[in-house]
């Protein structure tokens, strides 16, 4: 019998050690060094800052997030202070996180591959542990057009521009609404990405029937929370198959330890946490850790890594197969 206290939840992503697999997802609480530290103190295994672009942006007007029942929908619109200020914020966050042993993931976006590279150069001065390319935000279509994550060529163009300037592990955040997410993952890895974050939110819309208007000011938004989970689990499964051995941060609707175990069994190394902060409050990281540890123990394992990819085992052929 494995004792709960013997369960080791720590993992390593490209040489970066996380005390547990739960990663604060980009866009949740990542707007300041103090909030990033707060998430780490609340038990996150790594924290991702809010995505930053080259210039400051105010984002969309309210409403920006609503709970529609089976999940959330958001269109925050990438408000951020611009790359220069973001680098200062990241440096301050890095200093706060160092004594806690919690790594920092910087997240960036851009309108062109060259702009991505320029933002990367600036924010990397703060020496984040990992750089994540947000090529999949569904909510800035009006300004930026189709996300780079929509096609292999688009995704690869960003990775090729950033890779030469990036000295830290490079993760690419992919979109769920593509016909073949595994192929996109394979192509960005071939182009030099070290890891994959999967997935971003799923585009959707909620209309208020009384007024006949979309609830979000941006009209459409990204679905997250419970509704996204099976979609995300399947994407992670496909990616794990397409790029075996490449670290994946499985993100999308993880609310409980069981959800996290599903992600890990699908092939995720780490697990992103976003909407769950709404569903379960700021204590969510502690709860998730305890729940996942119990599941690892249930599988008579001592390391969370032993659950990784379990769902990929071949089907057990039935001895009494029913003949038609």
């Amino acid at each position, binding site marked *: 019998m494995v004792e709960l206290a013997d369960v080791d939840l720590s993992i390593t992503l490209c040489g970066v050690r996380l005390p547990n697999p739960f990663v604060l997802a980009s*866009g*949740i*609480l*990542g*707007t*300041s060094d*103090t*909030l990033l530290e*707060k998430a780490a103190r609340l038990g996150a295994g790594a924290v991702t800052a*809010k995505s930053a672009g080259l210039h400051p942006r105010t*984002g969309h*007007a*309210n*409403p*920006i*997030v*609503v*709970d*529609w*029942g*089976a999940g*959330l929908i*958001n269109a*925050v619109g990438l*408000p951020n202070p611009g790359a220069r200020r973001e680098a200062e914020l990241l440096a301050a966050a890095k200093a706060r996180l160092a004594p806690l042993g919690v790594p920092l993931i910087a997240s960036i976006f851009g309108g062109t591959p060259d702009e991505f590279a320029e933002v990367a150069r600036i924010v990397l001065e703060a020496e984040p542990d990992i750089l994540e390319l947000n090529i999949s935000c569904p909510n800035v279509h009006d300004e930026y057009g189709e996300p780079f994550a929509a096609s292999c060529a688009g995704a690869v163009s960003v990775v090729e521009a950033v890779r030469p300037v990036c000295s830290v592990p490079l993760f690419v955040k992919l979109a769920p609404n593509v016909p073949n997410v595994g192929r996109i993952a394979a192509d960005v890895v071939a182009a030099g990405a070290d890891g994959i974050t999967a997935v971003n939110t799923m585009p959707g819309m*909620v209309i*208020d029937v*009384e*007024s*006949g*208007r979309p*609830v979000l*000011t941006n009209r459409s938004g990204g679905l997250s929370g*419970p509704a996204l989970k099976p979609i995300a689990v399947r994407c992670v499964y496909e990616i794990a198959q397409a790029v075996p051995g490449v670290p994946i941060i499985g993100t999308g609707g993880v*609310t*409980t*330890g*069981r959800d996290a175990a599903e992600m890990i069994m699908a092939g995720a190394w780490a697990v992103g946490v*976003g*909407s769950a*902060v*709404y*569903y*379960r*409050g*700021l204590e969510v990281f502690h709860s998730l850790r305890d*729940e996942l540890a*119990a*599941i690892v123990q*249930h599988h008579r394992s001592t390391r969370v890594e032993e659950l990784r990819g379990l769902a990929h085992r071949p089907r057990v052929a039935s001895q009494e197969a029913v003949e038609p």
Partner: protein
Amino acid sequence: MSSPGGRPHLPVECAPRLRPGGPFGLLPRPLTIRDVRRENSRTATFVLDGELPEAKPGQFVMVWLPGHEEAPFSLAYHCPVTLTIAAVGPLTRAIHGLGPGEALWLRGPYGRPFGVEPETERPLLVGGGYGVAPLAFLAEHLLAAGRRPAAFVGGRTAEDIIGVARLEDLGVPVVVTTEDGSRGEAGLVTQPVGRFLARGEGDVLYGVGPHGMLYALARLARAHGVPAQLSWEAYMGCAVGLCGMCEHDGALLCVEGPVRHVILE
């Protein structure tokens, strides 16, 4: 039923806690305006056709006007839902253009409410500007808990003073201050509060208003060693603890506020 290998089943996480909004979520819902009462040239109180029996004083709702924006407003009362709104910008001016029969879309209530401070008897309730809005709701709550509240209402001029009658109707004594002396005592609302504390006529502070007033109340609370619960305002986006826009001093005001307790050393 047993799981493979005779292992016990894993605990199933409690579903209700995971879905605070229920099956239909917490989408903004329209509530019809029943009555509009003018408080002063900038401020009006909207009584809506709806109740939030669970809501507590100090909590807020997000108010959306389709085609316009959405913003937070404190509950001036919960049954019926009542909001006191100052017209300061595009959304609030649009709301002021509405009358009975028209609707406001609400989601909430959100945030940490005011609480009854244990072992206190004489709470001092302090409001500045539209911050006075939730004070009568709070006073009612404190009276029901056997406390004897006194209220302090401040403004720049007599025209800015609102909410006094509602407090007096509850039997709560009200001290009014204006910066220009046009009504009540001349000066800042924190002056009479300091005097009451010095005379031992108050043992806990409750405050809603501009940040300058709240900082002054926090200093008074520390100087006199009395607990204080202060409601802070910040720009709010999601109102559910995700977007980070309402951070104030490392706290997320939408879920860890708006009411914060002053820590006494």
